[in-house]
């Protein structure tokens, strides 16, 4: 059993190593995050002064940091899957003793891990520099980071599922763009959902973005073991749902791949 997973671990390690070679991409990501933190910090500072809520910038910038770490670290896995299905590349891997889906997903996770760790590491230093005291207890930091990392994995799984829709759709551009926008809105990726009206939050709760983004990142300023448990349960539920869809799509794909691979 362990031996069977060795191949995926080897792929993860290689992909993790490879991600470091793309220094321009990594530097670009960090630069973008720095600019974002700088601008939003100024914005929340001004709001804080006007509303008299001191330290509001710290809460929201830490929230923004983790939201951006999940979004920016996400590899374009849907494109990889779509291209592999449409070009027939997938066909050339299915006669190897490895799951093509897990192979690509593991490769994506290796890449994502590097980006996520760098964004959180660098972003935390930048946020500390700009805002000072974080809104969470320092001993909760590893747990919050871990939960956000798992959310990023789930986010990658969601986009992998979108990529597999290439089996039925001629283009997934519109679909992935729509999902990305919905994630921003319903997941509260820029602003926490607390600033939206209640009816909007009620709708957002029915989407996976609520738990993947908002519920998880909320731990930054509202950490409790109950909230943590809720995040684990909800994300677990969505994971099962995505895995079920992926298993179904993949089984169809294995037989239908001939259309594109011949």
């Amino acid at each position, binding site marked *: 059993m362990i031996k069977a997973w060795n191949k995926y671990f*080897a792929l993860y390690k290689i992909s993790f190593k490879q991600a470091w070679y793309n220094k321009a991409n990594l530097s670009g990501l960090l630069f973008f995050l720095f600019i974002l933190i700088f601008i939003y910090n100024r914005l929340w500072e001004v709001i804080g002064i006007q509303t008299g809520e001191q330290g509001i910038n710290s809460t929201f910038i830490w929230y923004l940091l983790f939201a951006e770490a999940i979004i920016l670290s996400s590899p374009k896995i849907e494109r990889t899957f779509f291209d592999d299905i449409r070009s027939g590349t997938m066909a050339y891997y299915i006669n190897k003793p490895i799951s093509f889906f897990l192979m690509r997903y593991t490769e994506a996770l290796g890449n994502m891990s590097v980006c996520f760790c760098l964004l959180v590491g660098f972003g935390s230093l930048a946020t500390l520099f700009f805002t000072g005291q974080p809104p969470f207890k320092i001993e909760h930091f590893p747990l919050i980071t871990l939960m956000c990392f798992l959310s990023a994995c789930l986010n990658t799984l969601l986009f992998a599922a979108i990529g597999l829709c290439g089996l039925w759709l001629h283009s997934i551009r519109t679909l992935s763009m729509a999902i990305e926008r919905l994630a921003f809105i319903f997941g509260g990726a820029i602003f926490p959902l607390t600033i939206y009206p209640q009816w909007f939050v009620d709708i957002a709760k029915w989407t996976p973005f609520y738990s993947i983004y908002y519920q998880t990142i909320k731990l930054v300023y509202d950490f409790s073991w109950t909230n943590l448990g809720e995040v684990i349960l909800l994300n677990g539920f969505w994971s099962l749902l995505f895995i079920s869809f992926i298993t179904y799509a993949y089984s169809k794909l294995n037989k239908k791949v001939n*259309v594109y691979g011949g």
Partner: protein
Amino acid sequence: MTDIIKVEQLCKKFKIKKDSSGLKSFFKPEYKTVNAVDKISFSIKKGERVAFIGPNGAGKSTTIKMLSSILYPTSGHAEVFGLIPWENRRTLSKHIGTVFGQRSQLWYNLPVQDSFNLLGKIYDLDEIKFKRRLSKLVKLFEIRDLLSHPTCSLSLGQRMRCEIVASLIHNPEILFLDEPTIGLDVTAKEIIRTLIKKQALEEETTLLLTSHDTDDMEKVCDRVIIINKGKLIFNDSIQALKDSYLSKKYIEVTTEDGEKIRQEINTHQIPIKKAIDDLVKRYHVSDITVENPPMEEIIKEIYKRD
């Protein structure tokens, strides 16, 4: 010797969407059916080196993809190593190796050695056995200097040697090669052919090689199956094909003045050596090439005699 590959009445049809625009085709698209492989039957014994040749679009690659468990057939039956390929992908994968000339199984940005290591893990190979096997193949295919290079920096000929090593790493009994010499120059083609044959003879690997280059089959294989428009039209030894259809050769001579003279000869009537000697005597030759008739011509000849 037992049959290691058995194919009976194998068919593969592709449904292709007709190229049409407009609202009607959006709601009710029209399809046409193409018979890529049309009821072919043959068998291959252990250790045989079989060329599967035919012009572009003949159905060679589709057949090889069905036998290597990539594609599902529309109808018919096939057994490779006693297993139905498309129903036993995982089990069969340990017994077969595949090389697709137009696709790479190596990781594009990784050094070749890393790709081999990953393949070793994918095939669950024992560390010591893997190292021993790789070392043997590296020596056989002369790729020691290439191991540290990323795949993307290799020439096509170098990459193809590495691709073949990658497909042999788990010591498969059967090797499927789909156009392994496509796009290579004359020297690289010659190297690849020699190495493939050497390896097959040394390890008694069964080869099924597709190509539309008749030189590939002459230099590597001992049997040939010719397929055209999905149908099998010839299945015999290379010698039988040579005697019947490859007696015609084209000799092209370039003189020192740059003039090109092309001569067709029948080797049954004039030995090739004599024909070349005559040309050399007659002209101041700067270059000379001998070619087999193109695939299309051989097929035409087969149909004509039938």
